[in-house]
C-alpha cells in the first residue's frame, strides 16, 4: 500500500492515522465504558496500526513517478479483499441465524449470540460490508477506466475504504454488545453515523474531482448510477439518522422523528437503501462489466436514459409500500403502491437492456461462468423487481406482509441479483489486477456458479412456499367464523422450509468460500503482464476505434 504513495502522501497519511488514534483515544476516555468505549479502542488500534505501517515507509524511496501513467488500483484491490472478508462474516452470520430459526434451542446462553443481535450482524455484514465494499472497489475501477484518468488523489480513496470499514466494524461489534438505534439497516449509533457522513462526503468529492478530470466528452451510464448511489445514500442517511444523543459520552440517542412520521422516514430510507444501495450502484456495476466481459455494445443508449431517470424518480416515492395497512394514512399508501407499479417499467427496461446486450454473445454466456454470473444477475433483477411491484399492491401485500415471502423477495434480490453481479465483477477484476488472463482456477469459478445458483433457488423457492403458506394459514377461517389454524400451527409448518433455507444458504456460503480461495490463489500467482490499453488516456497512443481491432470470427 505505502509504496504506491508519494512521500508527501505518506506524511499526510501518517498525520491522519495519528488523528484517528487520537479520536479513538478521546472516545474511549470520554465514554469509559459501554459500546462507545470499545469502539474508541478499536479506532485507536487501527490508528496505531496505520501509524506503524506508514512510519516504516516515511524514509523509504519515493514512489515510482511512472505510476501516474497507470490507474490507481491498490484501493480497489483492498476493497475486494474486504468484500470477500465481509462475505464470509455476513453470510456466515446469515447461515447461523437461518439455523437458529430451525433450531432455536441451540442458542447459547450468551446474549451476543442471540438471534436479535446476530440478525443485524448478518444484514449489516452483507449489505454494507459485502455490498458496500464491492461498490466502492468497483466504482474506483470503473470510474478511472470510463473517464480514462487516474483517481484525483491517492489519500482519499484509502480514507474512504478504511473509514467505511471502520463504520462496518463499529456497527457489527455494537450489535453484539446490544447497541442499536433500532432502525432496520440504520442500526449504528449517532457517532458512527457522523463518521459515515465524513467518509461519504470524501467519497463524493473524490468521485466528482476524478470525473471532472475525465478524458472523455461523455459520462458513461455506469457513472450516473454510481453517482446517484453516492448522492442519494448521503441524503437518506443524514435525514433518517437525525438524532439527539443522550449524552456526548455515551452510545445512546433518540431519533428526532416520532410516531408515524418516524416510521415513514425510516421506510423512505429503508426502501431507498434498497434502491440506491442495493440497486443503483449495482446497476452501475452491471453497465460496466457486462459489456466488457461479453465484448458487446450496450444494446440501447436511449433505454439506459429511460431506466436511469425512471428508477431515480419513481423509487423516491415508494417507501410507503412497507407500511400498508398501518397507521400511515391511506393516501400515502396509494401513492407508494402506484409508483411501485410504474417503477416496474424502468426496472425491466434495465434488465431487458442488459439481456439484449448479450445478443451475439450467447456462446460466451454458455462457456464463460463469469459472464453467466452476470446473466443470472440480470434475470434475477428482472424477477425480483417484478415480484416487488406485485407485492406493493395493497391486497397482495395483505397476504405477504409479515411473512417469509418478504424474506424470499429480499434474497431473490440480494442473492440472485446483488451477490451474482458482485461475483461476476470480482471474477473480471481480480485476474485483471493480478495481470493475468483468467482466474487461477476456472473450474472453481464453474463450481461457484452452480453452488450459487442452486443455493439461491433453494433459498428463494423455500421462502416463497413458506411465506404463502404462512399468509394463507393466518387468514383462513372455518365456516363457523373461527380461525382454522393457530399461530403455533403456522410456526410448525415452517420447519421444513427453514431447514431447506439453511441448506440453500450454506451452499451459497460455500460458493463464496470457493471464490475467496480462488481470488487469493489468483492474486498470488505470477502475473502475465497487463494490457497496454488499460492506461489513462494521457499515457496512451490513440485509442482504437470500436470494432477496428475486433478480429472477424
Amino acid at each position: 500500500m505505502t509504496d504506491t504513495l508519494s512521500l508527501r502522501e505518506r506524511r499526510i497519511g501518517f498525520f491522519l492515522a495519528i488523528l484517528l488514534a487520537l479520536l479513538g483515544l478521546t472516545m474511549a476516555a470520554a465514554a469509559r465504558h459501554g459500546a462507545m468505549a470499545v469502539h474508541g479502542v478499536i479506532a485507536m488500534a487501527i490508528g496505531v496500526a496505520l501509524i506503524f505501517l506508514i512510519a516504516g515507509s516515511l524514509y523509504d524511496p519515493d514512489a515510482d513517478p511512472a505510476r501516474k501513467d497507470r490507474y490507481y488500483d491498490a484501493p480497489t484491490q483492498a476493497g475486494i479483499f474486504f468484500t470477500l472478508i465481509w462475505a464470509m462474516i455476513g453470510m456466515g452470520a446469515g447461515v447461523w441465524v437461518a439455523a437458529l430459526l430451525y433450531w432455536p434451542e441451540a442458542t447459547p446462553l450468551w446474549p451476543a449470540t442471540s438471534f436479535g443481535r446476530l440478525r443485524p450482524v448478518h444484514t449489516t455484514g452483507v449489505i454494507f460490508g459485502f455490498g458496500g465494499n464491492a461498490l466502492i472497489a468497483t466504482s474506483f475501477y470503473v470510474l478511472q477506466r470510463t473517464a480514462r484518468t487516474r483517481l484525483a488523489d491517492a489519500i482519499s480513496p484509502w480514507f474512504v475504504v478504511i473509514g467505511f470499514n471502520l463504520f462496518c466494524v463499529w456497527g457489527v461489534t455494537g450489535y453484539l454488545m446490544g447497541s442499536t438505534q433500532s432502525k432496520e439497516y440504520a442500526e449504528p449509533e449517532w457517532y458512527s453515523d457522523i463518521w459515515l457522513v465524513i467518509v461519504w462526503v470524501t467519497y463524493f468529492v473524490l468521485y466528482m474531482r476524478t470525473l471532472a478530470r475525465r478524458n472523455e466528452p461523455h459520462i458513461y451510464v455506469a457513472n450516473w448510477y454510481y453517482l446517484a448511489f453516492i448522492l442519494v445514500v448521503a441524503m437518506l442517511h443524514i435525514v433518517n439518522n437525525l438524532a439527539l444523543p443522550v449524552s456526548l459520552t455515551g452510545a445512546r440517542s433518540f431519533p428526532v422523528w416520532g410516531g408515524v412520521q418516524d416510521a415513514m422516514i425510516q421506510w423512505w430510507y429503508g426502501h431507498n437503501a434498497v434502491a440506491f444501495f442495493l440497486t443503483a450502484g449495482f446497476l452501475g456495476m452491471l453497465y460496466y462489466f457486462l459489456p466488457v466481459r461479453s465484448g458487446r455494445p450496450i444494446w440501447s443508449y436511449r433505454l439506459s436514459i429511460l431506466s436511469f431517470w425512471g428508477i431515480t424518480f419513481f423509487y423516491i416515492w415508494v417507501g410507503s409500500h412497507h407500511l400498508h395497512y398501518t397507521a400511515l394514512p391511506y393516501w400515502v399508501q396509494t401513492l407508494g403502491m402506484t409508483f411501485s407499479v410504474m417503477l416496474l417499467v424502468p426496472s425491466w427496461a434495465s434488465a431487458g437492456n442488459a439481456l439484449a446486450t448479450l445478443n451475439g454473445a450467447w456462446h460466451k454466456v454458455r462457456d464463460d461462468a463469469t459472464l453467466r454470473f452476470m446473466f443470472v444477475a440480470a434475470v434475477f433483477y428482472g424477477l425480483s423487481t417484478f415480484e416487488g411491484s406485485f407485492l406493493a399492491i395493497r391486497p397482495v401485500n395483505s397476504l405477504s406482509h409479515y411473512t417469509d415471502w418478504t424474506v424470499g423477495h429480499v434474497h431473490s434480490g440480494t442473492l440472485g441479483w446483488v451477490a451474482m453481479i458482485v461475483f461476476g465483477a470480482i471474477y473480471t477484476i481480480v485476474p485483471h489486477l493480478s495481470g493475468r488472463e483468467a482466474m487461477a482456477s476456472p473450474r472453481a469459478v464453474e463450481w461457484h456458479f452452480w453452488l450459487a445458483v442452486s443455493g439461491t433457488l433453494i433459498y428463494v423457492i423455500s421462502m416463497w412456499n413458506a411465506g404463502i403458506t404462512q399468509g394463507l394459514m393466518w387468514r383462513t377461517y372455518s365456516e363457523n367464523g373461527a380461525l382454522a389454524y393457530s399461530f403455533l400451527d403456522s410456526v410448525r409448518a415452517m420447519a421444513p422450509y427453514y431447514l431447506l433455507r439453511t441448506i440453500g444458504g450454506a451452499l451459497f456460503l460455500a460458493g463464496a468460500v470457493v471464490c475467496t480461495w480462488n481470488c487469493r490463489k489468483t492474486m498470488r500467482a505470477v502475473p502475465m503482464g497487463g494490457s497496454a490499453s488499460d492506461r489513462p488516456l494521457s499515457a496512451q497512443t490513440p485509442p482504437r476505434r470500436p470494432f477496428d481491432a475486433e478480429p472477424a470470427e
Partner: protein
Amino acid sequence: MSGADDDRPVDPVTGYQTTGHNWNGIIELNTPMSRIAVWALVLAFLYSVVAWILLPAWPTGNHYTRGLLGLDQGAEAVDGYRQIHDARQGWMARFDDPDFAALAGDPAVMAEAGPAATRLFHDNCAACHGDDGGGGPGFPVLSDGYWMWGGDPATIAETIRVGINGTDPDTRISEMPRFDWMSREERAILADYVAGLPAQSADPGSPAAQLFADNCATCHGDTAAGGLDNGAPSLADASVIYGQDAETVNTTLWAGRHGTMPSWSGRLTPAEINLLALHVLRLSQGRATP
C-alpha cells in the same frame, strides 16, 4: 440523431449504428427507444391514474383527495372484524352466560365450538401449558385432573379470568414461602420426605414428618393431598409443577415459589373464557382434541 449518413460505426452483429461514444472499448448502440417500454409506461401510468381517481391519493394541504370509492381503512378494518364476529356469534353467544352442564351435553354446539376452543388454547395458553395441556417445568399440567384451585368448569373459568398472582384486581394470590430460615439438615430431610410422598415411601413417624406437620400442612393439607383451594398443590400425587425430586424440592424450600398465571379478563371475552374452561375440563377428562 439517427441519420445514416454520418460516420458512426455500425455493429456487425445487429446491424445497428452506435452512438459514437466509446469508453475504453465500451460502446452503445443507437437503438431507437423501444415501443414496448413506452407503451408499458403509458399503461402503468393509466393504472395509477385510475387508482388515484378511485382511492384516497393526493394531499391537498390539510386534506387529501378522497377517491370516488370513498374508502377508509379504519372503517374497513372495523367492518372486517364485525363480519367475522357476527359469523361466530351464532354459536359463541351460547357461551356468554354458560350453563356448563347443558353446553357440554349438547353435541351440536360442541362440534362447532370444539375446534375453535383448540385454536384459542393454542394461541393463548399452549406457550406455557403445552398444546395438549401437558405442562412443563414451572407450568402445571392441566390435563391430569389434579387441581390447585378446583376443577369444576365455573372455578376453572374464574381462575382463567382473574389469573394467579396476576394483574386483575380480584386475582388469585398464592405463594410458596421461603424456608431459608430452616437449617440445611432440616431442609434436606424434608426434601427427601416430600420426594417420597407420591410413591408413599415416606416414613410417617420420622422427624421430617413432624417438620411437615408443623410447617407445611396448613397449606398443603395434613396428608399433603392439597385440595384446600389456596393454590398449594397436592404433594402426594403424580402431578408436579417444578419437580418433586429431592434436589428440586430443596430449591423450592430454600427459594420459595411464586408462579404467575396471567389474568385474561382484559384480553379474552367472557364467552371465550367459558369456552376455554370447558376445553380445559375436557382435556383433563381426555375428551378434547388437543
